[in-house]
């Protein structure tokens, strides 16, 4: 038996969340697979399920002056169609799973699932996204890299729900995104790489680099990025070996059924090098 709650609104959902230990269920594209048993049997969940995917309050996209607010239960297809969505996010969403999964899977679900291979995560890290967590007492805002603590682990409390994602508005001249999967569509990432850059008067004004599926969480280093900012392309070319070796210590991939650590590491660094040499220079 599966117990499930289907609240009318966010307030009721948060009350349920406060009263009982439940599993929030948005699109279910990860949960249904995890709980799968024999066909014909309901999937198995450790706790009762709280449906939130239908809540209108979690399905809005609002453009404010300096940021974009994305409701956690917006489906990936909906975001792809949304005219306010930053190009970098759209590029990642185009490569995300299959149309069928994008039609039901949500951005909040992809974040809370906290998979190393979650395909919205590298871009959310790169654009300095933060998440808004809400319980019956109020809200708190947490930067994405502090929200995700490890494989499948987040700081979401038992009484909280992920309400929305806040993305600061910022434009970039260069977007280099590569998802390396086993096939062209409907594949989980072996590696994903995102490089964003803004160049002004021959100098790197802003640069963001993130790697997915090559460590327990997304790899991004503000420290290394800061070293590149305000520098000329020529200078960056000279220090590429150093940059590669700095990232090399942060990239800690594993061998699994989809690829191996050696490939993941080498190719991540090759993608980085390609971005730094071919794409921005």
């Amino acid at each position, binding site marked *: 038996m599966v117990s499930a709650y289907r609240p009318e609104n966010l307030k009721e959902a948060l009350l349920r969340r406060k009263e009982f230990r439940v599993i929030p269920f948005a699109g279910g594209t990860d949960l249904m*697979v995890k709980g799968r*048993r*024999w*066909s*014909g*049997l309901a999937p198995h969940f450790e706790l009762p399920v709280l449906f939130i995917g239908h809540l209108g309050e979690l399905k809005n996209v609002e453009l404010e002056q300096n940021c974009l607010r994305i409701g956690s239960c917006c489906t990936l297809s909906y975001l792809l169609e949304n005219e306010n969505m930053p190009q970098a996010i759209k590029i990642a969403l185009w490569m995300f799973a299959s149309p069928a999964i994008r039609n039901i899977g949500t951005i909040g679900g992809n974040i809370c699932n906290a998979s190393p291979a979650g395909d919205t995560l590298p871009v959310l890290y790169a654009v300095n996204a933060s998440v808004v967590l809400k319980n019956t007492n109020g809200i708190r805002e947490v930067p994405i890299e502090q929200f995700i603590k490890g494989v499948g682990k987040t700081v979401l409390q038992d009484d909280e729900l992920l309400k929305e994602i806040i993305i600061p508005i910022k434009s970039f001249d260069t977007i280099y995104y*590569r998802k*390396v999967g*086993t*096939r*062209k*569509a*409907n*594949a*989980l990432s072996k*590696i994903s790489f995102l490089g964003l850059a803004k160049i002004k008067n021959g100098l790197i004004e802003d640069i963001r680099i993130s790697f997915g599926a090559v460590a327990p969480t997304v790899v991004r280093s503000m420290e290394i990025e800061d070293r590149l900012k305000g520098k000329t392309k020529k200078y960056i070319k000279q220090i*590429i*070996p150093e940059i*590669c*070796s700095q990232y*090399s210590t942060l990239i800690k991939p594993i061998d699994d*059924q*989809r*690829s*191996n*650590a*050696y*490939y993941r*590491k*080498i*190719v991540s*660094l*090759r*993608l980085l*090098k*390609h971005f730094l040499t071919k794409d921005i220079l």
Partner: protein
Amino acid sequence: MKQKISIPIKKSDVPEKAGGSAKYIADIEFEGMLYAKTLRSDRPRARINSIKIPELPEGYYIVDKNDIPGKNRVKMIIDDQPFFAEDVVNYIGEPILLVVGPDKEKVFEIVYKIKVYYEDIEPIFTIEEAEKEKKNPIYGDDNCFAEYEFKKGEPEKAFATLSYIVEDEYSTDYQEHIYLEPQGVVGIYENGKVTVYGAMQCPYYVKNALLQAFGWDENRIRVVQTTTGGAFGGKEEYPSLIAGHAAFAAVKTGKPVQLVFDRNEDIEVTTKRHPSSIKFKTALDENNRIIAMDVDIKIDAGANAGLSDVVLQRSMFSATGVYNIPNIRVRGKALATNKVPSGAFRGFGAPQVFFAIEMHMYHIADKVGMEPIDFKTKHILMRGDTTSTGGLLRSEVKLPEIIDTIDKMSQYREKYEKFKKKRDGLKGIGFSLFFHGCGFTGSGEKDLIKAKVKLKKKKNDKVEILVSNVDMGQGAQTALRKIVSYSLDKPIEHIIYENPDTDRVPDSGPTVASRTVMIVGGLLEKAARKLKERWNEAPELEIVERYKQPEYIRWDQKKFKGDAYPEYSWGANVVEVEIDPVTYEIKVLGIWGVYDVGVAIDEKMLRGQIEGGIIQGLGFATIEVMNIKDGKIQQDTITDYIIPTSKDFPKIEIKLIDNPYEYGPFGAKCAGELPFVGAAPALASAVQYALNVPIRKIPVTPELLLSYVNLINKPQNSKELRECLTTEHVPPLRDPEVSGTEIAELKETS
């Protein structure tokens, strides 16, 4: 000239399948039906000490080895596979017992609560271990399910006198069928008679397996094929095992019992393509002509013999490809390992060796400084030549026309030259030549199958086809109805062909080996022509036609001498690729295919077979990775075992060359397996050309190519190629897996 029969008509199974009204076995509800779930070994090799079963609620049953009235062995070439494990289990997933009952939830719970106490035995996982381990073999005293050798000419003499010798070793890995519909059966026991319904290719294989397992009279066993959602060989021998399970359960419970696999279970426990290891030793004379070839083939059969013996034979008979080699020795072994049994899969042992022989020919061409297409063309078989087993090629071999056509379509030579002169990214182009031996080996049709077909003219002037062959999506119902309709000169709507039921249809043999159109269709054509002559004799008529072997076939099954197959279909593929210089992903830019299948019974359906075969072959060559670690399949879900989608490969350009076969219906030969065979070597050759590294195993993954980077950075390679692939600034984690032969190769060429 295009034959009239080749003009496409509507494929008859499409509306119900595309519209969703087709009933597959999982869709059919029988009254009072119970559900069965299999308890399986979770050990690769162990003795079962005891099994602890919880108390069963009313109406729930355990079905195991004690519930088999006859022999606890699935009828196959060697009867070594138990329906249910006895004292020992030999692979992870081997069935031990069934739990059967009305509520799936409870059945699932009971399976979960059963405890099996094992005593582990040292397992054997690889071909090498299987050959070495003589103390505690899985099968016989040497782990060999089959071992053969045959010769042509005087290979020893040739090798003793010639000094220019090229040696190579190749390997291929598992492939899973991923038919759309997983395996499933329902068993029913009524009035002393067992009926099994299910997805299958060979209703009479299933019936014969049940006869042996029950030891009952023939009329107490009935098998009915239900609409089958794909098979590719995966539903050749495997359904016999689960038909037994469902039948034993039906007899024990007195109720219909459904046994339908979920996808994960299907991937984990059903048969797969045999992994192989193939060695070549080839001697050339001073004119760069191949004088002798020695081939050593080993296939990994898994825990049971299954069909490995005949898979091995087809590998051996195909070992020297489409080439005329005067002196040949071929050896082969099928070895037992503690892994899921390997089995029939489109191509049946031939794709492995065609990958190997084509890569070997390419390698030799490189060594002697010839272009692969010229070197291969120089050695092709022609009419009047003899095959590796000494069979005379009586029909015209249209390879020159095939080669010429594909070269024009794909601009192969031009591109080959262009890429050689100037690098345009990491592009490469590859070319393969291949055949498929049509139907059963040698006199198999005459000695083993003895096919019989029946045509029944009804009062309403409709004609029913009664054969045991099935439509599994390949279009047998349309093709066979078309043959009968055209032979009788009656509209296709008047020809009926229902899913076979062994109580109604004679045994026209299994739906395998690309034999359905050529052999069964041939018999139906004859029967239809007889019926046409006798049409006005009576309102109802029955015509029976039995297989008669064409006079010309000569075959010695003991010595492997003569016509290994009644006839051959031929083909060529060209594949163009570009390798991503950053990630080593392979992008396929173009695919071309030219085929001689005699005459197409329906050009559109044949195109479907060809496109599907090529894509399945390219999946086998590139992305379909299946590793077994400690006996456990690592890619055991559809998420991790990746097959191509429509986005992975470009449009395929196909041409057919007519070459009617005297004994085939309307001149048709075989077509179902042929298109699979040539895809992998064409792809691998293109990758080899693009990167200038020897490709010796498939699948060719980006991970494999990365492990070759040290080879790719050969000093003689162009600066551009080396630059694209350099790994400077990237400290390797560990040494890439480069085998001894590859290092030797590097030394030799640099």
